[in-house]
């Protein structure tokens, strides 16, 4: 069978009995069997669990929960009770959690069918997926290319049509980048909109949990399922953003984001996006965020500091393997982080980075307030997908992949990344829209406006 590409098609088909939930699972598992070995997308396939849930759904036959009959695959950094969770690291090779993440519980309570756990850069450290201790994931659009990281499997699983939706985490682009490199829609939510409880922490003040899917509507549906207070993440608040119907949108173009180093195909593509919006009466203004140029530097101080703290618990006493099993990138970040937090260096590194972070936040807030823009448009990454091995021996150039991602994480603002075409080599292209905190609704509206205008259709690689 041809599996449906959206939640609506899936649920309509199930309700009209065009196919059963079990048949859907059959189809996805067939696809996994066919391609997973080569593309290295799943670390664990939960076949039995998927069939059990599908049978239960077929028996009830209602499919009226928001995610009823929707197959979901989780980045392997989401704890799943009784199902091995590795974070892509060999140190957790045999770790079976005793509890599930809040987002996993919410998704499954909403009727989803869990099909498996996805490959990712170990502890989400990376932009290409190549830092996974279980081997790199290949990009289904072209297997010579990386699928984007760190949620590498979360992107590839959808373009390879092995699941309907997936989850990822975004600390500095780790959801948006793989979505962008796989022709998908994704949301990096407002920091504090979705609980991080039960998701293995990378950098706690930057980590966000979000969905990947093929349409804005689906991403919105999943976001509405996973958002909100759970009593287990003290940073989460139930805050409703502006949900008014806007007659006119205004988008800011940050001058500093369209400079040398940005791939010409991406720049051209975003100009086309702007032209489409202009036809729809959306106003564009040039804005300036002068301190965002320090974003990646700030990020590479704060993030390793928090990483060095969060990884301390993997001390070899519990969780199975000892510290020899930590990969090179994890060790690099532990060393960097321990250094910037050390007595005598704290003020000139960590504290200074935090102060620059505050400066970036106030500049971004100012643009939303003073220039009255609803969103900022930006590339997701400076280049389209790059080749496997191209940057793996040059950590600094790999880190620069995140240059456009950092602003949203440092400021805690939401960012919607969506597809907008293909390169001449048939590799996916996309862009991101960032809005004020808790402005997800308006970002979805803006995204839909664009996709409607270009008559966007979801596509998979095979």
């Amino acid at each position, binding site marked *: 069978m041809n599996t449906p590409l959206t939640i609506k098609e899936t649920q309509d088909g199930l309700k009209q009995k065009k196919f059963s939930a079990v048949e859907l699972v059959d189809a996805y598992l067939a696809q996994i069997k066919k391609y997973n070995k080569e593309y290295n997308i799943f670390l664990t396939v939960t076949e039995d669990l998927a069939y059990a849930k599908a049978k239960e759904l077929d028996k009830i036959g209602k499919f009226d929960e928001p995610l009823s009959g929707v197959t979901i695959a989780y980045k392997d950094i989401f704890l799943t009770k009784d199902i091995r969770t590795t974070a892509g690291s060999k140190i957790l090779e045999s770790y079976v959690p005793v509890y599930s993440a809040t987002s996993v519980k919410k998704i499954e309570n909403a009727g989803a069918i869990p099909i498996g756990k996805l490959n990712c850069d170990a502890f989400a450290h990376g932009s290409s997926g190549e830092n996974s201790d279980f081997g790199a994931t290949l990009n289904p659009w072209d297997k010579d290319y990386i699928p984007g990281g760190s949620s590498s499997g979360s992107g590839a699983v959808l373009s390879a049509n092995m699941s309907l939706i997936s989850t990822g985490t975004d600390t500095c682009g780790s959801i948006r980048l793989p979505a962008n490199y796989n022709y998908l829609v994704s949301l990096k939510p407002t920091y504090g909109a979705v609980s991080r409880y039960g998701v293995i*922490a990378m950098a706690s003040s930057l980590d966000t949990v979000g969905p990947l899917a093929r349409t804005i509507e689906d991403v919105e549906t999943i976001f509405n399922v996973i958002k909100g207070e759970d009593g287990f993440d003290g940073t989460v608040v139930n805050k409703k953003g502006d949900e008014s119907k806007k007659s006119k949108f205004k988008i800011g173009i940050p001058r500093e984001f369209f400079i040398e180093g940005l791939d010409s195909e991406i720049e051209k593509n975003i100009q086309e996006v702007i032209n489409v919006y202009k036809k729809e009466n959306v106003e564009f203004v040039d804005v300036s965020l002068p301190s965002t140029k320090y974003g990646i530097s700030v990020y590479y101080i704060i993030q390793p500091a928090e990483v060095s703290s969060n990884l301390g618990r993997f001390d070899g006493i519990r969780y199975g393997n000892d510290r020899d099993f930590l990969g090179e990138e994890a060790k690099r970040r532990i060393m960097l982080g321990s250094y910037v937090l050390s007595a005598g260096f704290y003020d000139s590194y960590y504290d200074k980075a935090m102060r620059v972070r505050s400066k970036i936040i106030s500049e971004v807030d100012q643009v939303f307030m003073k220039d009255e823009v609803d969103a900022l448009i930006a590339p997701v990454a400076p280049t389209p997908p790059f080749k496997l091995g191209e940057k793996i021996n040059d950590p600094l150039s790999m880190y620069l992949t995140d240059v456009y991602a950092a602003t949203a994480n440092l400021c805690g603002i939401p960012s919607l990344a969506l597809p907008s075409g293909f390169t001449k080599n048939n590799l996916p292209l996309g862009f991101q829209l960032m809005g004020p905190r808790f402005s997800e609704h308006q970002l979805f509206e803006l995204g839909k406006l664009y996709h409607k205008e270009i008559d966007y259709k979801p596509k998979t690689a095979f």
Partner: protein
Amino acid sequence: MKYTTIIGLEVHIEPNTKSKMFCGCPQNHFGAKPNSQTCPICLGLPGALPIANKEAINKVIKLGLALGSTISAKSKFYRKHYFYPDLAKSFQTSQKDNPLCVGGSLLGKAINHIHLEEDAGKLIHQNNISLVDFNRCGCALIELVTAPVFHSTSEVLAFTKELQLIARYLDISGADMEKGTMRLEANISLLLLGSEPVTGSEPVMLPDYKVELKNINSFRFLEKAIEAEIKRQELELSQGRKIKQETRGYDENTKLTFSQRSKEDSQDYRYFPEPDIPPIEIQESRIQELESSLPELPQQKREGFEKQYNLSKEYIEILVSDLTRANYFEKACKLNKNYKLIADLMINKKLDEKYLEPAGLVKKIIELTKTDFIPASDVEQGIREVLSENPDVITSYKNGKGQVIGFLIGQVQKKLSGKGDPKLISAKLLEALHG
């Protein structure tokens, strides 16, 4: 050479909250089966996040208010990193800048700050293996740090005892040293005389070392351990040796302190603000509400007892040092005005242990003071017999030895087996002697 002792204290108090500092597990772990009170949060499992315990924060604020501290309007938690097998996350969530309470004093001794943190688990060593019990891991812990302003063991003892009493009065902790709900660390150093500070204030120049005395688990130990350490340091210094910066323990058998860990290189805890807990904002209204809920504190009670009941200092101290007894006494005094007798019966006869309710004790007092005396005719008969048996005493009396009256009353009472009304005996006896 003469030295002045300089001591600063770190006091840990385990508050009697319902749950641990950052999760829903029970705070009280005394006697619980190892690892029976744990969850993903206090075990520091991957993905788990802390939620700060409001009750614990309120208890620290109460203690701060009772000690005259300034309550921070905005307080933060920090991660303090170190490795130990009983520390589940590899860092302790504690406080550094902006602790909940800043300043304050007790018995004239300056308090630096009071903060909130979480406790670590416990290591149990048996037969060459070490086991970890995580029941205590993540329990709320109050840390009070004083300035280096103590100059004698007795000052330290008075301070810690009063602090314990205040914690109990505030009902924030049992503050029991033996149960480990109150723990002391003393930083001790000696300063050459001549540069000694004014009592209660910080010395202008501190010695260039300090020895941390740890694991003191009773007041008795506290006194002995500090004395032993002061003696050791005096000896070292007088023999021209430099004292090492280190952590020492006290051995009850040898009555000496011993080195536990060198502190020559101070440990780098790599503190940074805990990103998982948003800064805690403490509104003025919350402080006022807590302030108005403060009970009477020991010192107020002492003054009250002196004024209202006119008891001796000794009696007051005995009653006030035990809140249950102090309350018992007050209740009893509301029922009966015989304050001194109530205190007497409680302190000397321990009748508050016999009568669990003050009303019972008061009933007993009424019984005692209202004994049924034998009839007046029997008293008169008794007097007659005593007088006839003691003609020489009568003579003495008549010769002006008034004090023999007491002897006669005693003789009468003896004859009546103590059942005579003393006032009646005295009146009738005088009547007979003069009549």
